[in-house]
């Protein structure tokens, strides 16, 4: 199927795949930071599980991006040798872990987007995109179930957990709008049926989020609030650079080495 893409569409798809792969990579890295610090042993297992799934998906998206890009790079080189300005992840994924509620707010908003997006990508006209999405959707269905459950537990748990959960949601809300912004080349992909349009996705996402927060006795922030964007243009918050410096240390320090 990739042979049929014209060059503009191919470039647009590479860009989109980097966006998906980088978002998964960065999110997974943040989850890795939790190892050994989770509030219960069961959560160690669950967070590692989500992190593993996202890492695997990241590799699939980036491998496909590398293949389409056709510049002799592989998924590892894309992940470990691009600098911050070339990273295309959503800003929400790079936000620091904070406390468990902060991490769960980030995860929940991301999972709800991820779930609805992969659901749509299961219908992609690009067979490879479709295949990766189908595999990923099973995993992400679990991720969303888990983070939804935690939003409810913490929202409708104790007074302390309710407050922390509400603060976490209010705090990260400004990074949710970006999930539904399109780049200048996305319309090519939408038109070709490779990726879904953002607007209906946003409605699905918002419906799910509002219903969950309500059940969790939490207040959903204003959907028209000012939203921070920039990740897809490589314009990141000041947090990403440190994350990449750590993550990329070995490949940078020992160029060309096999591990």
């Amino acid at each position: 199927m990739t042979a049929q893409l014209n060059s503009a569409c191919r470039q647009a798809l590479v860009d989109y795949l980097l966006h998906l792969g980088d978002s998964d990579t960065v999110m997974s890295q943040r989850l890795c930071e939790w190892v050994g610090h989770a509030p219960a042993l069961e959560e160690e297992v669950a967070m590692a599980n989500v992190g593993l799934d996202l890492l695997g998906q990241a590799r699939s998206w980036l491998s496909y991006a590398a293949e389409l890009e056709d510049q002799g790079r592989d998924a590892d080189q894309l992940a470990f040798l691009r600098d911050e300005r070339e990273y295309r992840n959503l800003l929400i994924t790079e936000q620091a872990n904070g406390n468990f509620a902060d991490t769960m707010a980030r995860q929940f908003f991301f999972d709800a987007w991820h779930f609805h997006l992969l659901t749509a990508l299961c219908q992609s006209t690009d067979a490879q995109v479709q295949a990766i999405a189908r595999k990923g959707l099973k995993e992400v269905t679990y991720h969303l179930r888990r983070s939804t459950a935690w939003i409810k537990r913490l929202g409708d748990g104790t007074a302390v957990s309710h407050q922390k959960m509400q603060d976490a949601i209010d705090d990260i809300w400004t990074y949710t709008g970006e999930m539904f912004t399109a780049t200048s080349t996305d319309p090519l992909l939408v038109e070709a049926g490779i990726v879904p349009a953002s607007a209906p996705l946003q409605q699905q996402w918002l419906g799910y989020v509002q219903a969950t927060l309500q059940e969790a006795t939490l207040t959903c922030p204003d959907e028209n609030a000012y939203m921070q964007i920039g990740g897809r243009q490589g314009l990141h918050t000041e947090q990403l650079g440190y994350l990449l410096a750590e993550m990329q240390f070995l490949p940078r320090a020992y160029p060309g080495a096999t591990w």
Partner: protein
Amino acid sequence: MSPEERHFQEKIDAEIKIEAKNWMPEAYRRTLIRQISQHAHSEIVGMLPEKNWLTRAPSFKRKLQLLAKIQDEAGHGLYLYSAMETLGADRDEEVAKLHRGEVKYSSIFNYPTRSWADMGTIGWLVDGAAIVNQVVLQRTSYGPYSRAMIRICKEESFHQRQGYEILLTMMREGNDEQKAMVQDSINRFWWPALMMFGPTDTDSPNSAQSMAWKIKRMSNDDLRQRFIDQTIPQLELLGCTAPDPDLKWNEERGHYDFGEIDWSEFYDVLKGNGPCNRERLRTRREAIDNGDWVREAATAYASKQQQKQHAA
């Protein structure tokens, strides 16, 4: 010996597993709780030195492997705590004992991981030493512990092969810096790995009773010898050396001879003076303390849900 005690020992002697509901001597129960909880704590604390390189793993493949391994260890912790709870112990209480410094975990995890090669060495040498121990424990007399060991051993063997493969890749496809990293890592972990089997038999006074109860099934020194014998060929295949000038094959014994272990280091680390004892315990303590409000919320939510169901 009471009739119960006699019956218990007869089962042990006949290699019949003791199960949770069976009568058992109080000392047997206490010894097992202590041993299983230490084993569980070791799985959990053992995640930390690996976590130190998780966020710096050099490729997707290695990061996936390492994260999966760490996840397995958390899982092992869960099985083991469950096995321990069949003996009437409470997980939270045992963890609290760990955090108060009343129970130990394997001293090997008090050594820092100083390079990526340590991820290979821990898999190969440290898990390798653990497996030698655990393979024997698959035949331990207490049923739930024995079954947990069987499950854990399978996964550990997988980890050990992965660890060895990390080192082999660095030695065969790596540059000089990487090869030096591997040798350095082996130099640092060699002796601590040998210490994992515990003091020499002459200094291990509690072993006799454990052997009679078949909680233990081989002596520390025999296990250590077995580990060395099976490890040296692998070491040679790597093209590396052990930091032990006295190490050599003894044709007569049919075993490798090896140098004197520095037991003062072992006891120092055990006393809390290892390079990372404080950090490891602090990390675990903070994880649980910082998670108090989360676990409280989960409990509160669960009871609210239950009330709703009752009301409905």
